[in-house]
């Protein structure tokens, strides 16, 4: 079986932190699937993503993307993945077009390719009329959509989205989810983190619940609901496994 992501016994402890961010996390994700990585605040989702894209080195354990080690094959891995960070990782004083042109150039794309791809994504994500405005003047939803476009310009094999719909209105969220469903149907792998369980139910083939840096359970949303006592929806399953205590 070919995996897009393989993580084994991953541990990470940040200096000064009171608990490990990852405490022996293991999981694997098949190619061409969409997987939701769910967990409460501080569960280790963002650290896991940062290790996968080579921004953070693990203390121990291994993380592989498309069979390549995340600590040694960063260049290859980064060319194959598109990361949509939780924050709007764009230059706010540049227009969307200027951002895409710059980012595209840094990916080594030529002007025509950048224009073609960016125009296509702008159309699909409903930003074509606003592409000449500065990103800093966008609404929250527009910024999120521009953030997604910037991550997909190089047409990655896999896209990792860290809470891509946080703080956006229903219209933008619906548009983003529809776009991701369509993107998945094109045969791409999607790793998705969110606090919105209904989103995960909508777009994910499988969900992985993590808590306190450890793997808790995985399966398709439907299976998890069916196999967990007294659970009618994914949110019940999530609370069943992670508990009701606050994670401040």
């Amino acid at each position, binding site marked *: 079986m070919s995996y897009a992501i393989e993580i084994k016994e991953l541990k990470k402890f940040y200096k000064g932190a009171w608990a490990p961010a990852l405490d022996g996390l293991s999981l694997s994700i098949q190619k061409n699937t969409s997987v939701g990585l769910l967990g409460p605040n501080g569960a280790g989702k963002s650290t896991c993503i940062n290790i996968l894209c080579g*921004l953070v080195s693990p203390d121990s354990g291994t993380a592989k993307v498309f069979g390549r080690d995340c600590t040694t094959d960063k260049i290859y891995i*980064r060319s194959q993945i598109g990361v949509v*960070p939780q924050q709007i990782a764009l230059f706010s*004083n*540049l227009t969307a077009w200027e951002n895409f042109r710059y980012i595209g*150039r*840094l990916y080594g794309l030529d002007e025509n390719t950048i224009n073609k791809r960016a125009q296509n994504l702008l159309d699909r994500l409903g930003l074509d009329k606003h592409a000449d405005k500065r990103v800093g003047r966008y609404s929250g939803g527009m910024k999120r959509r521009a953030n997604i476009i*910037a991550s997909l310009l190089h047409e990655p094999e896999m896209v990792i989205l860290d809470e891509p719909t946080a703080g956006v209105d229903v219209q933008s969220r619906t548009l983003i989810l529809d776009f991701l469903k369509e993107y998945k149907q094109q045969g791409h792998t999607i790793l998705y983190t969110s606090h919105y369980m209904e989103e995960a139910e909508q777009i994910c083939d499988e969900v992985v619940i993590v808590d306190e840096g450890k793997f808790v359970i995985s399966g398709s949303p439907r299976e998890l609901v069916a196999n967990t006592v007294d659970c009618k929806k994914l949110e019940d399953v999530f609370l069943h496994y992670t508990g009701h205590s606050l994670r401040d």
Partner: protein
Amino acid sequence: MKKIFATIIKEWILMRRDVGGLMLLFLMPALLIVVMALVQDAPFKDYQELRFELLLADNDHGSLAEEITSGLKQSKNFKVIDSLDGKPLTDAKLQELLADGQYRVGIVIPKGATAEVVNAANHIANSIAGKLGMAAFPTRDIRDTSYVRMYFDPVSKPTFRMSISFALDKYVTYSCSNILVKRLSRMGKMDVDTSETADFKKIFQGIGIHEEQLGNRFASAKLINSVQHNVPAWAIFGMFFIVIPIAGHMIRERDERSTMRIELIPQAYRFVAMGKIIFFTLVCTLQFIFMFCIGLWFIPLVGLPALYLGAHPFTVLLVGIGIAYAATAYGYFVGAMFKTANQAMPFGAISTVILSAIGGIWVPADVLSPMMQKISFISPLRWGIDAINALILRNGDINDIWLHIIILLSFGTVLWFISIYKNARRYSSGQ
């Protein structure tokens, strides 16, 4: 190369949108150099070109007083004031005017000063006459109260006092020599021109001190003046203030996570860093050129001499690029080392002021204490100003400044590598 160029274009777009910031980047240092050149014009002229008003109370009216008065009046440095409202200055009035701070220096020639000099000359002549068996001149005991008195405004600098004292001493010595020679010639009935108009300065003109050029290279070299010191010095200072926009820019990009986006693009980070360094080095070099243009063409309009660029103006530009690179890399370093703008801004500003103070920007490094002179070599501003001075004051060439350029480039490169290392560590430590 395309990635570097793309970064330069992006930085240019961002800078173009911040017109206010762009203006401040060029106009504030320009204003600084004009103001500093004007403010420091007088202190730099000091004892070279300034004409001081000097109070003179002549209670002697003899040849000594005449020698001193005419010497001072002939000097370009003094305007002698020996009377006020048609009345000769008195000792008391002179002291009163100095105490009020209206004048900087006053000289009182006491009554009988010439007689005292004549008496001293007679003593000397008599000691020679005694050995030769000749008749002696009448003498009396030497008094030690007839010396020429100098008074200074208390705020006068010691060097100013010293230079006035030296000048006066010279006139007194001439006068004494004159009188002594007259005594000797009268004693021996020699045929020496002892008339009152005899000019011993001419007789002794081949003896003494005369300033000479070091060589042809220095024929057109400029004496340091306010413009020659202040324009390059404050231009370098202003260039180093680019630390603030660069550090602020880096922290803002890190905060809005666009730096993270760059980090996620394979092999982009180093090209982006290079693009930023090249762009800001260019901006900084333009600042340097702009400020030197101010020195060349604007400064003369405010009544100061035009900046002299030495015999190799393009070598000055080379030094400017070296300084620009060091300043840019320092800004990059500050931006990399500090987490927030609140940390980076004060550090950037204050450290630039400190580096400039120890680097000979405020006052030439030569006047610093020996220990501070050694410390000053850690400041890139010292290497910058030394190189510029070698070119514009000593008419130096590339052979005189290549080491300075290498040090400036090395300083920048070391800081740049530390910054790249720090940025790489930042993510792995979860900051």
